[in-house]
């Protein structure tokens, strides 16, 4: 990938992350930490491609670990966040 182009992506993504979070009420900090934890579970995709290109047993073994850990990050992150957010409901108006 073009290094300069990647640098621009880095920069814009960093500002986006900062902006998206900056107006979050404290009550959502924990679910949000958990939710952002889920989002970086996309590392699973990188692990899959690394494993897909692996040739020697060593590469396969490390690639397997990468996919295993990535999948755990994504699945666990989703379940935990979903459970937390499921509990947020306003009092029904009477």
């Amino acid at each position, binding site marked *: 990938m073009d290094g300069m182009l990647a640098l621009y992506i880095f920069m814009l993504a960093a500002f986006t992350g900062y902006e998206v979070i900056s107006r979050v009420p404290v*009550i959502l900090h*924990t679910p949000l930490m958990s939710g952002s934890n889920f989002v970086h579970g996309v590392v699973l995709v990188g692990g899959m491609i690394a494993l897909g290109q692996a040739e020697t047993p060593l590469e396969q073994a490390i690639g397997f670990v990468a996919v295993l850990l990535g999948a755990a990050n994504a699945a666990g992150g989703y379940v935990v966040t979903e459970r937390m957010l499921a509990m947020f409901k306003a009092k029904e108006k009477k």
Partner: protein
Amino acid sequence: MAIKWLIDASYFVAAILFILGLKGMSSPVSARKGIVWAGVGMVLATVVTFLTPGMNNFALMVIAIALGGAVAWISGKKVAMTDMPQMVAIYNGMGGGAAAAIAAVEFARGEMHGTVVTLLATLGALIGAVSFSGSVVAWAKLQGVMKKAFRLPAQNAVNILLALVTVAVGGAIVIAPTVDPLLVGAFFVLALLLGVIITLPIGGADMPVVISLFNAFTGLAVGFEGFVMGIPALIIAGIVVGAAGTLLTQLMAKAMNRPISNILFVPMAAAGGGEAVEGEQKEVGAMDAAALMRYASKVIIVPGYGMAVAGAQHKVWEMTELLEEAGVEVVFAIHPVAGRMPGHMNVLLAEAGVPYDKIFDLEEINGDFAQADVALVIGANDVVNPSARTDKSSPIYGMPILNADMAQNVIVVKRGKGTGYSGIENALFYKDNTRLLYGSAQQAIGEVIQHVKALSV
């Protein structure tokens, strides 16, 4: 070519869904939709990756996804809400480990194209490995597997030395014309060791900030490895989380008045003990406590981690409903670091059914304590310690606190006379208008409920 286009387009959509998902999670109303959007993005990205041309090892891939996914899914479903912080820590550590492992595969393949790629792969490996081993230690501490904060002699010097050696070895890898397996192996061992050494001396009370920091670390590591693999979706998701996690870490550290450098390098106990507090703790019975609140017009409840550990949040909500039926205005005041993470207490209260519009944070409610008849402190300690305002020698001096001491009456539910988690004396407990209700939160509030019921007949 069509497949390549489909994959790229799917990654693009996934990246949009991740950002929209995080955006949605920043408001209680849209939060649930947010995580579902992000989830759809994740499934989409994972499924299309199987279509990538020229890939092998599909059987291994499916086994790894099924195994890792199933174990994490089931343990995530089962974990109690009080244990949520360590679960986030361990899942986060796994993400960091995955990023480091991706770098390891690339090193093993020995096909690093150019210095920039090698540099970012190495950087991602370092950050990911530190996040992995550090998160495991954080998990072990919060889970109670590892009890004590453990300090080496000259801890800071050891930390810095180890960090410098690790960076030096990393630098050697980047400069070397070919990949040296010995050097790479040593690098990973050093990086993992560094994560352990950094996290070991940190006390449990500071752990939320550390978990948040490692969360940001993992994001960065994922972003860097995304560049190495040439997948923009990984770069975007990783860096967005890196930036958001950094901001979140700063917010938490600010709420605790503990700069991140202090948390990492200065242990709480070494900061000095603070002044001794004069006076006596005055006890109150459940019946008097019940009467005090039943005939109050406004009660502010300050819940702390002690309440959550006792599992008393359901009882507290039951009591709140009883008091409200009797015409008392009851609200909850939450300190930013109540519980083990910012917002953790809100989650625990939400679990008990407390609507979020009855829950207020520090800035919103601090002015109201003076108008409250009763401040009911349940299992909270440092976050209501007035020494933070007055006593310069106190380790928590300067930390923003909830002004529970300004209320007409203060009732503190407490297990015993000790100083609690941080070991700091609390002047609030000795004030003239403070009464202590001894007992576990579960049992003490249970008794109060009985007496409130008796008064309401």
